[in-house]
């Protein structure tokens, strides 16, 4: 299964991935029109301390604590992708409490959101990886050597 892998030595800290992610979640319209001047709500997060930077998004764990701990049964694993049923979720934040990587976040629409590999918007080509200018974010089958 293809997943997102991140090579921090290639990350420029430009945060384009955050913008592309937020825009994909809002329907992939004209990015400038959709996002300019707004607080964005991406599922991917860039960590940056001025020296190093890298992006973090859901790892689609084989032992997903978010799914196991979900009090409503709204999180399931479909073909290896950890997905949230927004219709069932009540926004209790137990998944946010459980994810060791900080990859589940409150959503601007009231409940929670996480990376679902763009299955729900661009049909499965993660926008962050597609638009990373330096290929620091890869969407592949292969692990990335450390």
């Amino acid at each position, binding site marked *: 299964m293809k*997943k997102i*892998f*991140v*090579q*921090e030595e290639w990350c420029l800290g430009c945060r384009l991935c955050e913008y592309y992610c937020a825009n994909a979640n809002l329907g992939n319209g004209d990015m400038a029109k959709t996002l300019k001047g707004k607080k964005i709500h991406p599922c991917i997060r860039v*960590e*940056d*301390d001025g020296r*190093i930077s*890298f992006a*973090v998004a859901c*790892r689609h*764990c*084989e032992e997903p*604590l978010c799914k*196991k*701990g979900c*009090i*409503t*049964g709204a999180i399931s694993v479909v073909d290896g992708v950890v997905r949230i049923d927004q*219709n*069932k979720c*009540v*926004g*209790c*934040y*137990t*998944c*946010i*409490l*459980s*994810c*060791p*990587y*900080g990859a*589940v*976040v*409150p959503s601007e629409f009231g409940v929670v959101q996480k990376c679902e590999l763009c299955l729900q918007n661009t049909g499965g080509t993660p926008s962050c990886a597609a638009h990373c200018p330096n290929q620091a974010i890869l969407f592949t089958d292969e*692990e*990335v*050597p*450390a």
Partner: protein
Amino acid sequence: MKHVIIGNSAAAIGCVEGIRRQSRRDEIVLIASEAHHSYSRPLISYYLAGRTDLQRIKYRPDSFYKENNVTAMLGETVTALDPAKKTAVLQTGKSIGYDKLLVATGSSPVVFPAEGLEQVAHLRTFTTLEDALYLEQAVRPQSRVLIIGAGLIGLKCAEGLLGRAASVTVVDLAPRVLSSILSAKPAAIMQEHLRQHGIRFCLGTSAAKFYRYRDAYHAQLQDGETIAFDHLIYAAGVRANSSLVKEAGGETNRGIVVDAFSRTSLPDIYAAGDCTESLDVSSGERKVMALLPNAYLQGEAAGQHMAAAGGSPRSFSEAIPMNAIGFFGKHILSAGTYPSGEEIEVFEEEDGEGGYRCFYFNKAENRLAGYILIEHPVCAGIYTALVRERTPLTAEQFARLRENPGLIAFSPEVRAAVLRKKEAQA
């Protein structure tokens, strides 16, 4: 191999899924007193508030039992276990044989006796879907609701009923709300928030007696105040349903005693969830950690062990108290324990906008023992993992993490294991 599971909630479902990870073929029989399809117990207050419905409250899809090839005997109660004959005896007198058995019977609410309590016809506890369905019918816009207990269940009930009733008053012997998960300051923040939404509190007191006068019930409190009410909800605590194991000769304490594989002291009998007592790795103490994520994980570990020939290498040894709960949009996230003592450094701060963060750092062991966040939920799971894994932290690392929870505080090797590997290993 035939597995019998008693219960149909988080721990039982975790067990079904754990068994099925090991074996598609083993036989599974699931027996539960409640006649409903598996539902999310914590959502019963959301149901009253109109935030879920009878379809969405289901913990697993309608197809769950069929897809997992489970024979579900819903509406049946187990009254005894016979570990020698390896049978579970039903109320109907029927015996069901097993090779491995899981007790996932959860907990039951306790009602302490008080003078006149037996006269209160409209007394209810609040732990089942039946309770929610009853209250949905019984509580009217003119009803005055009195809730005994300002813990998690009492306050969730108060939140769920507020929009349906004329008034909701909560009484608790403890001087603060949510005393089992919050220290004084965050409790005061939450109490004020709940008060602003219209919930009335009488704390540090209890109902000395109940009586009926004219058309209403009355509770006379220890501190002299009298409260008139139409519905009484008793939410003063729950007790583990451990009697099946106890009566069969198994070891029980405040809950059924289990090891890291969820095994009881009886051969081939496992137990998981709210009915058990297990090790809290954040404090090293044994306790009942009656929370849904623990119930699921414990049930799953039990299932994997039950179905694996020679036992599964997976075990559940990393239980900690952890809780995410929100009231009227304000969220509390907490995990671990809040110890005091010389070796504990407490970092507490309010953000001036109703948010709060507090960390309990163990200086002797260089690790985070516990935390409480009101609002500021982002990346909280990073703190939870630090508590659960007892990750050694330098003072500098902890200071960075406190300011900014993230993977950046860790070494490049740790980050690479998370971000470059297929199965993240943190």
